[in-house]
């Protein structure tokens, strides 16, 4: 199905370009990432076509969460959390891909306007803190998310196949947060964003994992009791082979 869509797009691309209705058309091979019990991360192909030469920038943003950053310091020889900062509505996932390094594609003001790149992303502290301290917390947030694979360290590569067709691969780690993701595709010419498209992507648990999660959240008491009984049964069963004595 996805492959068919791709070929159709390839065939139709020149037609659409000649209509000059959409300078940019892009899509993902699938709009759902299903997390099963065997999930170890996945990657997804984004493909599209333009009506002529230009640069493509693709950003992927995970669902927004309120993130709390805590800082430890030494009190009487022991390291304890002493201060914290809250970053409301911060993307839980962020990755970027582009045809060339961002600074060659767009000016700082354009990058800031469209929040391209981690430096330009709106990650702001809610608490009233001195600017240096806020910047330190922000840097710590980005560093930690990068270490966990949730914020991309270096931009990925968007490749052109010929003049108009492009594709890129977006990677998702096994700890990817669930929710609705927004994949944004920008067509940039001479430093200006000419066209853009937003594609939603759903990341959710499916199969057994989803059922367990659903049950645990909606029937917490029953789930807890069943978990206890299951564990007790497993303990009893496992002792059977050892019965002889």
């Amino acid at each position: 199905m996805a492959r068919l869509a791709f070929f159709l797009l390839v065939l139709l691309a020149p037609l659409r370009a000649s209509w000059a209705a959409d300078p940019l058309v892009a899509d993902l091979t699938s709009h759902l990432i299903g997390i099963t019990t065997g999930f170890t991360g996945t990657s997804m192909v984004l493909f599209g076509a333009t009506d002529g030469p230009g640069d493509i920038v693709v950003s992927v943003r995970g669902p927004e969460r309120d993130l709390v950053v805590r800082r430890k310091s030494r009190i009487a020889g022991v390291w304890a959390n002493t201060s914290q900062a809250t970053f409301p509505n911060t993307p839980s996932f962020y990755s970027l891909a582009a045809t060339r390094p961002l600074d060659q594609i767009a000016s700082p003001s354009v990058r800031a306007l469209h929040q391209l790149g981690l430096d330009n992303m709106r990650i702001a502290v809610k608490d009233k803190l001195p600017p240096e301290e806020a910047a330190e917390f922000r840097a710590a947030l980005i560093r930690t998310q990068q270490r966990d694979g949730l914020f991309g360290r270096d931009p990925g590569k968007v490749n052109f196949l010929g003049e108009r067709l492009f594709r890129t691969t977006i990677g998702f780690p096994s700890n990817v947060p669930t929710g609705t993701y927004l994949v944004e595709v920008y067509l940039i010419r001479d430093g200006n964003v000419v066209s853009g498209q937003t594609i939603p992507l759903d990341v959710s648990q499916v199969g057994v994992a989803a059922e367990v999660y659903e049950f645990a959240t909606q029937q917490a008491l029953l789930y807890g009791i069943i978990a206890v009984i299951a564990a007790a049964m497993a303990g009893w069963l496992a002792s059977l082979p050892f019965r002889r004595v």
Partner: protein
Amino acid sequence: MDIYLPIAAISLDVVVLLALGGSVGFLSGIFGVGGGFLLTPLLIFIGVPHAVAVASSANQLVGASVSGVIAHWRRGNVDFQMGIVLLVGGILGSGFGVWLFALLRQVGQIDLAISLCYVVLLGTLGALMLVESVRTLLRQRRPGGSRRKLHQHYWLHGLPLKMRFRRSKLYISALLPLGLGFAVGVLSAIMGIGGGFIMVPAMIYMLGMPTSVVPGTSLFQIIFVAANVTVLQSVGNGTVDAVLALVLLLGGVIGAQLGSRFGAKLRGEQLRLLLALMVLAVAAKLAVDMTVRPDDLFTVLTEGD
């Protein structure tokens, strides 16, 4: 081979989880301690979120303890009467402990409070047990040494409400095990563990129970404390990962069976010495962790976790 854990929301290697459950189960089978005080920090170390590690360990403890109790029960090493009295105290205590936990959390610094609890408690207990078991071993070496009495009597045994515990060969006040159960219940709610590592030495030294019935009786009591914690955590925080617990159990129950067999071959004094060393090692590790500068001073968490 990786498995995705629905509540923890991460993938972990099944082999690692099985090995982890197995080795903790082995120790719990030998000593009759649930092993929660080892399992929880180890789970956090391999990347399971704090809250999920605590809650799922409790879930795992239920199964591991059932399996352990069966093994001890077959050898007649469970004092059910004592277990039930301890349990009554334990349930009252854990109720109070949950309330105290919420209070500590409001004030902040619950993590530090937990670590301090561990270090002080484990350090004191471990040191006392080490001294005691070394002394016993030395005394036995000396020829012609006087035999120890079955157990010593002091003021604690003079309290009212005397009860006869046949299996433990004791005639003591019921307030004693009741109070012990309560104290351990409070601590286990705050520290997120079964409390066997406190219960076991207290049963030996405070109540004067014969070493042979201690592990089985302690495990019997832990089953219910852990079950209580699992249900409370599920309802209160939704952090019980049953998939994680069952995988850990698979390794854990086999480890526990082997452990209880191995433990039966060891002499009481050796058992105490080993347990003392293990408790001290955990305390030392935690103390070092608290005082060494962390790699990253900052931690990030999602609000509400």
